[in-house]
């Protein structure tokens, strides 16, 4: 059964494997192309360097006219990431457009890591430290980076959706 959303996701996947952007990876769930598991590696030369951050993407049949729901499964300390892993990023919300494919979404999130927008904070403490005490902010970031190496549990308990 091939709907436009599924067809498009197949192509997104093909592009991601044939021409993979640096530092990101992802693949659909073997029995459900609408659900993807992805990884973003922390950008080099930033406090995020070395981190491996897992995310899930959930697409609806309205894709690519609607953005997927994207959530970090690895615990993050970042001004634009909520405690439950959801991400506050314009292209995933009001600035979404069908020209973004999975690869583009992942690279946008990757650049959000090292280039946060402290003006629309999802995590007030992270935003405050980012603005006022970068040293401490970086230390907290290093903590989640190190935790990401061992962590294999979802950011919050609700995550039984990835079977």
């Amino acid at each position, binding site marked *: 059964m091939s709907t436009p959303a599924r067809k*498009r996701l197949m192509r997104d996947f093909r592009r991601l494997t044939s021409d993979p952007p640096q530092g990101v990876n992802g693949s659909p769930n073997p029995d459900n192309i609408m659900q993807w598991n992805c990884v973003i590696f922390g950008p080099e030369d930033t406090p995020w360097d070395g981190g491996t951050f897992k995310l899930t993407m959930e697409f609806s049949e*309205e894709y690519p006219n609607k953005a997927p729901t994207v959530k970090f499964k690895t615990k993050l300390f970042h001004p634009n990431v909520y405690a*439950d892993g*959801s991400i*506050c990023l314009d292209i995933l919300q009001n600035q979404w457009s069908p020209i973004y494919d999975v690869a583009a979404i992942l690279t946008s999130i990757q650049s959000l890591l090292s280039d946060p927008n402290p003006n629309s*904070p999802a995590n007030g403490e992270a*935003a405050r430290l980012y603005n006022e005490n970068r040293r401490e902010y970086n230390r907290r970031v290093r903590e989640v980076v190190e935790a990401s190496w061992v962590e294999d549990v979802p950011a919050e308990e609700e995550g039984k959706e990835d079977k």
Partner: protein
Amino acid sequence: MASTEPAAEPPVAGSEAPDRPSDEAILQQQNQIRAEQAKVSEYVGQEENLGALKAEYENGNQNFVQKIGKLEERYRTFRRTRGDGNCFFRGFIYAYLEGLLQNSDLAEANRFMSVVQSWKAKLVEGGFQELVFEDAMELLLEQVKEVTKASDQFAQEKLLVNMRDDMVSNMIVMFLRLVTSCEVQRREDFFFPFILGMYDEPPATVELFCQRHVEPMGEESDHLHIVAVTEALQIPVRVVYLDSSGLPAGGGGGGAGALEASCHDFVPDSCPPGTAPRVHLLYRPGHYDILYAKSG
């Protein structure tokens, strides 16, 4: 954001959050308004008499009533589109396809199809990936082929059903947005002055404007979008501007001149000036509907 789990609103940021509602709250409200719109109106409605339009203003601003009365001399009916920010593109393409169908205009249909196909190379050259637009382009071409097959009641119904279908209708709108964006960026020198000063932070560029105001679904269309898309597809359009302003059109003439809605024709450079518009749209501040001219 998708409306799959309205209950699970992410927690609002800490104590320092200002009074301004959070971005999430604003978005949620926007989505809610759109969802309510979707319940009461189709993407494209039924043809209605202009009297129905007039009735909306009967107890309100009489300038509207006067102007609609005047409009009735030239237009027979109108058709509403859903106010979801895509109304210009949707109204435009629906009215155009319907015109092809009713006039069985094979020559125009063929011209249009080759123009649409020529955009494939231009979009790729403009940096759009094929995977992003090829399905949408196919869908649009299919609609054109469909409307040239027959011009009976059934074909008309089919067009309506397709343009009311979430997937078909939105994919076509999306394709038009990409073509518009690409046209604006291809002719950056021409379009840049129009966006100059629209925002300073970050500095306005044609590319950024397209990313923010052309490509995303639901972003409203303005003069600039219309100029670009009518040029890109070479389809002349007339927009009738209906607002509450009280100055008689044309000024001067004989004192008690009746108020008249002003018109603006978007005629692509490739068409001789004065080419008859193929699409008539009714603009009321913030919204476009379709107008049907009286024949003859």
